[in-house]
């Protein structure tokens, strides 16, 4: 007798609902034990975290501020993941999007009419993100270079380019030598909706709808699905695999580039250290939690942002070191991610002998 996993042919709705709930209960219990070890009341802590993330309109606004770049990058990488193209370069695409947006806002602005400046800033960000993702996509489709490595490595290149610029050539001459570019002209500011929540939120929501439509109701979406599930079959069906991969990865990068542009134009209004926060890596978790679904990505991004923002309360109210907040985030996420195994596979018990591999 032995245990093995069998891939589910159809997704069971009950499992789909139960798995995240059970995972959450497990993680709450695990986290609760950890909190008891630190001598604080787990229920009070969870309550404080929830209030910190959702307890007032201001708190919820701060959660959304964190969620916007996660939504955009999460949507972006989910396109690539549908193709089984492991784009883990959203961080670099986001940063380079911020760099390009900054270039337009600060150095091209004298040549652009004011009403076109903000659209140009955002477009430049999206194009830069697309270009940065296009390099690994070309290497993959032309030369079969593994994209995991190239997308990851280009993150470091993009971050160093950005740092080189705001510590060097682009450093604000009026900033007393401190790192960071000058502030953008006001015409390049992305307006805010409420608190610090900027219009990047609207872009993310619209793009989620657009992406949902394209994925589930167009030929392109079907091709993505085919290439991801069975490349050989897609080939026989006459799908131009290389072109579809290239176009899709350009779009994937554009989402992250737009995230970077809306961060610099909506929050700091200058290029500085704060842009580089690891959103592009968290995006990978967002995409998988959402099982690559656009609407679920929006919700998953809010949940991840809530964990980050609510985590502050663990320090403020419970007087625990920030590391405890991070451990809690991990403890909440691990069962959730492990749980997705059970929604994709079922655990079977085999009594027959002699079968070596399922």
């Amino acid at each position, binding site marked *: 007798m032995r245990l093995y996993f069998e891939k589910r042919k159809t*997704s069971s*709705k009950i499992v*789909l*609902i139960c798995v*995240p*709930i059970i995972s*959450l209960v497990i993680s*709450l219990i695990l986290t609760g034990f950890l909190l008891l070890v630190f001598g604080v009341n787990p*229920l*009070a802590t*969870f*309550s*404080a*975290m*929830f*209030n*910190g993330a*959702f307890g*007032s309109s*201001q*708190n919820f606004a*701060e959660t959304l*501020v*964190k969620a916007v770049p996660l939504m955009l990058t999460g949507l972006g990488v989910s396109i690539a993941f549908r193709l089984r193209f492991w784009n883990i370069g959203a961080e670099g695409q986001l940063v380079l999007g911020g760099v390009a947006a900054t270039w337009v806002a600060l150095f091209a602005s004298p040549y652009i009419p004011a009403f076109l400046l903000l659209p140009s800033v955002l477009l430049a960000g999206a194009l830069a993100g697309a270009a940065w993702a296009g390099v690994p996509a070309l290497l993959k489709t032309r030369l079969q270079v593994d994209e995991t490595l190239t997308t990851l490595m280009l993150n470091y290149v993009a971050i160093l380019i950005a740092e080189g610029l705001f*510590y*060097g050539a682009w450093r604000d001459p009026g900033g*007393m*030598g*401190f*790192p960071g570019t000058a502030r953008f002209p006001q015409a390049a500011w992305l307006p805010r909706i409420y608190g*610090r929540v900027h219009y990047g939120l609207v872009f993310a929501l619209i793009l989620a709808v657009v992406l*949902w439509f394209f994925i*589930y109701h167009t030929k392109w979406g079907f091709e993505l699905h085919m290439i991801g599930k069975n490349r050989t079959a897609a080939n026989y069906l006459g799908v131009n695999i290389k072109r579809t991969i290239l176009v899709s990865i350009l779009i994937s990068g554009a989402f992250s580039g737009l995230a970077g542009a809306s961060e610099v134009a909506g*929050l*700091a209004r200058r290029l*500085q*250290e*704060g*842009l580089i*926060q690891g959103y592009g890596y968290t995006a990978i978790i967002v995409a998988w*939690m*959402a*099982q690559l*679904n*656009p*609407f*679920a990505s929006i*919700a*998953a991004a*809010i*949940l991840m942002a*809530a964990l980050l*923002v609510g985590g*502050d309360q663990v*320090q*403020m*109210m419970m*007087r625990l*070191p*920030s590391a405890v907040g991070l451990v809690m985030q991990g403890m909440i996420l691990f069962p959730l991610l492990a749980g997705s195994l059970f929604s994709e596979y079922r655990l079977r018990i085999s009594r027959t002998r002699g079968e070596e591999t399922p």
Partner: protein
Amino acid sequence: MKKGITVFLVLLVLASGIAMAAGRQDTAPAEEEPFKVAFIYVGSPVDYGWTFEHDMARKAVEAEFGDAVETAYVENVTVGDVSRILNQFAQQGYQIVFGNSFGYMDYMAEAAEEYPDIYFEHCSGYQLGPNKANYFGRMYQARYLSGIAAGAMTETDQIGYVAAFPIPEVIRGINAFTLGAQKVNPNVQVRVVWTNTWFDPAREREAAESLLDAGVDIIAQHQDTTEPQRAAQDRGAYSVGYHSDMRSFVGDSVLSSAVWDFSNYYIDRVRAAMDGTWESGAYWGNLDDGVVGLAEFSPLVSQDVRDIVAQEKEKIISGAWDVFHGPVRNQQGEVLVPAGTAMTDAEMLGMIFFVEGVVGRID
């Protein structure tokens, strides 16, 4: 598609589930509300460096006022997150907020406008407001003294300096340290390696090791942790610490340390805020105030060296002389500050050149 909606709904339910599972939190009725003091740290109190010293001062505030104050801190706060933390402290009724990173400046200024009833104290910046003050210390004075010890003890005439970012505060420290070393050893060279991080133990160690490989026999630093000191000790080299008395964490290979002590300032400011006598201003504490100082020497440092340091310290405290009194030459040998003149505070705060004897580039 249906699957997607289901996942979406489940995630929403989860989010609200956390709330229901948590229930309502009971707040104990307080007899008298303590004065609430918040601290926002760029690093962690366990770095034994910059944030450690600020947290020691926070504890000094607690010890001074007892139950009359309540303090809280959030650690490892980046510039991208500081606005949120400021808002949260404001909403929770904190009455004075200290922030210990230059990068917080614009965000604290914004918060100061939004919350005119809260006092904001920003370390190392220059922007002022009616309810926003700045504080810092003339660390260059202590740097100069620690440079004397290093200059006297080096045998290769090569000292390594692990430095975070090419900004005026760090550059000023490197220059002052170099001038101190040159005071007792005119041939000395100070080699600078930038790490581009305040806090990264692994990178700080790597930078120190690369300098030791290049032939330096003493490591100085402008970082948040003790790793450069440990790297030097592991190789049998000496070092000069920064922020806290790093000898107590690492050992006697640390000849001395240029140290901070914010306790008195924090206690004074919190008291003023409680009394309602708080006033905005830019405070730049010096050796005399004790905000900056030199930690006790390692037994390895000779009495002769200690005497020179004591002499120079007297000279600075008396006000007769300061570190950046002319002549000061840049790396090209040009005299930037002629003999008989001194750099103004504004010039020192914006310092972006290296003095003669520093090996390294700013950009």
